[in-house]
């Protein structure tokens, strides 16, 4: 199998900007602001390297602030690494935020079209799949209402249905799946497992360790921007629990 993703010694630095000072303070302390050291840095990732094969499902676990979301954003390409290299050889479908790109005043249907095109389909292709998307989301009776009237569970259903119907090759998922109710969680997990069986590469960052153990073939434990452990889901999750428990 080919590599879907190759990450080599990736570092990511965020400047820790203090809140912007008022104009008066700015003038009074001008020399201090000119000095570049005034803004200190935070290293969100410190030399992370790993590979993901096509069709693999990789889980990423770690505490809040360990660098999971930063890593996913880097893979997606909405932010750039400070150092290191990221090679992606498949089309990425992100599910990083509940209904990212949904506009509250547009209807469910209108949002499906825009989101589908944003995620890589043409408009005609979205229209062909409209019925499937609506059916999977199970919110048919609300589909022509503005999404500002939706509950967060309905948001998730819609967002997830669009994403899995856009022929994903490499699916990036950040937490969000835990929003839905029991039945939709099971349904989305089954759909995900189905996609993985079909050969869709998946990277899943989550605090839901049970779900990680269920669907992933391999797990990476991120700790303060570094890989602390990597390997079999059972083992890594157990180790993680022992150390953070």
């Amino acid at each position: 199998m080919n590599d879907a993703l190759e990450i080599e010694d990736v570092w990511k630095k965020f400047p820790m900007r203090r809140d912007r000072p008022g104009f008066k303070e700015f003038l009074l302390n001008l020399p201090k602001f000119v000095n570049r050291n005034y803004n200190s840095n935070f290293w969100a990732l410190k030399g992370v390297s790993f590979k993901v094969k096509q069709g693999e499902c990789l889980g990423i676990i770690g505490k809040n602030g360990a660098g999971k979301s930063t890593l996913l954003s880097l893979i997606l390409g909405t932010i750039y690494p400070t150092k290191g290299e990221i090679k992606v050889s498949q089309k990425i479908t992100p599910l990083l935020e509940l209904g990212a790109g949904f506009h509250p005043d547009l209807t469910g249907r209108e949002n499906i079209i825009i989101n589908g095109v944003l995620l890589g389909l043409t408009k005609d292709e979205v229209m062909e799949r409209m019925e499937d998307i609506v059916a999977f989301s199970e919110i048919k009776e609300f589909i022509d209402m503005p999404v500002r009237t939706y509950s967060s569970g309905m948001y998730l259903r819609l967002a997830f249905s669009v994403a899995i119907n856009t022929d994903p090759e490499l699916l990036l998922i950040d937490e969000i799946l835990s929003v839905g109710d029991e039945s939709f969680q099971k349904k989305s997990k089954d759909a995900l497992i189905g996609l993985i069986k079909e050969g869709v590469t998946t990277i899943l960052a989550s605090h839901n360790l049970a779900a990680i153990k269920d669907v992933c073939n391999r797990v990476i434990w991120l700790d303060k921007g570094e890989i602390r452990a990597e390997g079999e889901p059972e083992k890594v999750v157990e180790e993680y629990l022992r150390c953070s428990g």
Partner: protein
Amino acid sequence: MFDREFRRKKDLLWLLTRKEITLKYKRTVLGILWSLLNPLLFAIVLVIAFKIFMRIKMENYTFFFLSALFPWNWFSASVTMSTGTLIGNVSLIKKIRFPRHFLVLSTILAQLVNLIFALPIIIGFSYFSGKGPGVNWLITIPILIVAQFIVTAGICLAISMVNAYFRDMEYIIGIVISLLFWMTPIVYPLKIIPETYQIYLVLNPLTYLITAWREIFMSNYIDWRSIGICYGSSLVFLLLGILVFQRLGKRLDEVI
């Protein structure tokens, strides 16, 4: 494959533009009819103003003013809106990967609707003045729309990005736009400016653009010289805009 990607980009730009337009009138009763009604009512206001209160000794002054104002409005509305384009779409920019400049381009295209809906008013005035509209319009209007789109895109790309880093930009732009309004021959003809100052107007890319719009609307004349200069300066602005947008775009996520 290449063809499909092209169609997808086209769909995306169209959908984003349509989204802007729908959202603008979403909760109004008259909806997009406002785009048609607005210029009409505005023209009526001007006729009242110039015929009764402020009698300007220039033939057809209302037409003179509107023939420049409607194209100007497309520019100024786009520039003003563009300050909020990137900072208003944070989740889209951070969580989905797509050509970000489409957000800016769709803002400009959505504002174009107002100019197009204002054309019937212009045509009406032109008809009553007896000089047009003519076949020349069909050639010139698309050419000028493209030229204005290019220069507006250059400026808006730069502004939308700079405003993400430096939010004061929004307020500066408000002032600069009104300065630019008076520095462009909109309410007055270019020739009333003393020659020593004309050079400053010429540095303004909108001077030729507005002149060319007025020539076609009022005299049914294709001002090739102005159009040529427009394209020259438009392309410079576009290149600068793209440069700024790409350079600063690398760290956009840190500031929005």
